[in-house]
């Protein structure tokens, strides 16, 4: 046991996120670590390079709060709703500050992270050719396939300085299980130089070891383990709480102006100390309404003689 790794989100962000870092808050629609993003805002980190396939509301908030200087992404929309207005305000009008962009397709960005996680020199992929994207992004290159002679698009590895990966359950050392949509969580953890694992539940090591095929990453990859229930709200955690679709729709309204956005951030980010305070501020009916039904997996036997 290495209990020195367990800490609060405040401590983890303070110790492992530096101004100017390339940050990857993992999660493709699922388990987006909002609590980590809020802590970054509270601690006024700046000049961050924010990387995520889908910036989602969390990066919209961090951009509005002035933490970002550059966005690496592949789909900058509010999923199921429309635009990310803060991203657009920053990129189109420089409010609150200008935002550089570096853009890929989903395959390209998830490929960069996979290549980073597995330390490939570069990754060839069947896409990008024919699109105007490569002309705008010098990191996308073309090589000749030595077998067919055809031109092939390639992307370089992405190795963030720090990744935050939220999971359903982890032990105190950071061995962890996730299920549901598993997005780029594993690749983010393997690609990053520093890894913060946050978990809905801290469980005994034996729970993780009872199902090693479900392990996302073993403990030696992580630098901090944070017990952070409801970390992902308004995103969701399969089996723990559902996506707060209402809030995703509401965000469109909240962000109509920079001022209204900052009012939200003042109240819900700066106005609370921690995620637990944030959760207790949510209407109880909201919290209760997001609790899922039960649908347990059929267990499997790992026994040997």
């Amino acid at each position, binding site marked *: 046991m290495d209990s020195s790794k367990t800490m609060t989100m405040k401590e983890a962000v303070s110790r492992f996120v530096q101004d100017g870092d390339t940050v990857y808050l993992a999660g*493709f*629609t*699922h388990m987006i670590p909002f609590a980590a993003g809020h802590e970054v805002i509270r601690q006024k980190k700046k000049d961050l390079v924010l990387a995520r*396939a*889908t910036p989602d509301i969390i990066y919209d908030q961090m951009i509005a709060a002035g933490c970002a200087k550059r966005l690496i*992404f*592949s*789909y*900058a*929309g509010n*999923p*199921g709703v429309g*635009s*990310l207005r803060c*991203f*657009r305000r920053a*990129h*189109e009008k420089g409010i609150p500050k200008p935002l550089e962009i570096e*853009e*890929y*397709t*989903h*395959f*390209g960005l*998830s*490929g960069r*992270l*996979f290549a980073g996680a597995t330390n490939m020199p570069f990754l060839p*992929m*069947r*896409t*990008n*050719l*024919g*699109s*105007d*994207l490569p002309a*705008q992004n010098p990191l996308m290159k073309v090589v000749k396939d030595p077998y067919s002679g*055809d031109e092939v698009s390639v992307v370089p590895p992405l190795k963030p300085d720090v990744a935050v990966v939220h999971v359903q359950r982890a032990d105190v050392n950071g061995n962890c299980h996730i*299920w*549901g*949509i*598993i*997005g*780029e*969580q*594993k*690749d983010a953890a393997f690609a990053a130089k520093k890894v913060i694992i946050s978990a809905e539940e801290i469980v005994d090591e034996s729970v993780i070891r009872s199902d090693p095929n479900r392990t996302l990453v073993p403990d030696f990859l992580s630098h901090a383990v944070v017990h952070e229930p409801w970390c992902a709200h308004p*995103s*969701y955690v*399969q089996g723990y709480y*559902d*996506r707060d*679709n209402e809030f*995703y729709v509401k965000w469109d309204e909240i962000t109509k102006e920079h001022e209204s956005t900052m009012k939200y951030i003042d109240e819900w980010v700066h106005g609370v100390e921690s995620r637990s305070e944030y959760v207790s501020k949510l209407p109880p009916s909201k919290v209760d309404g997001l609790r*899922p039904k039960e*649908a347990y997996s059929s267990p499997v036997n790992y026994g040997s003689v």
Partner: protein
Amino acid sequence: MVIVAARELKDRESVLVGVGIPNLAANLAKKLQAPNLLLVYESGAVGSNPSRMPLSIGDPCLVSGAKSVCSMYEQFAYYLQGGRIDVGFLGGAQIDKYGNINSTIIGTYKTPKVRLPGSGGACDIASNVKKIIVITPHEKRRFVEKVDFLTSPGFIDGKEGWRKLKLQGGGPYAVITNLCTFKFDEVTGEMTVTALHEGVTIEQVQENTPWNVKVAEELVTTPPPTEMEVTTLRALDPDKIYLR
């Protein structure tokens, strides 16, 4: 549009589904002529049996009871690049007569008038699935001579440009609007009206399309929705999130 799109799906095909209209169309087809249609979501869920209409492709109801869930890179690598997907639905802010789609920017890339969400998986889908079906409102600002930014390749400048890319996909297959259905000319790769929806004239289509619209020799009228189609569709969207 949902019903017309649903009719294009055949049993046992695999279809990459986005939320909204495509999701409805795919689920409608599955209830009717294509019970073994395989629904694949960008988020990694395969063979989903959603208990309700999801708002986003990342809805937990797409996972509960799915056949399989894999990671994001795996989804694009094993399924899309792997050539395992038959049909993909795309939309976009602009489309030209060769089916090239813009979902990135209005204006220029460096000085955008409107910054749109970007490719997401669209360019990857356009490059790798056997048939691309585009569902879009028929508006002049959407149908353009030249897209401001080419996000997802159609037939580029006709089939020649497409062939040079050596993509494994089949390219654009149909464009379904509120007025008509276009398919693509086998030789020139140009969008061609093949069916007018009931009550729509070819003049109306031309009025809303900036280029000289090509019309198929055997132009038909889209068969009207059957009672079965309408009832099934309404049951799929009881809260009328997508249907007015």
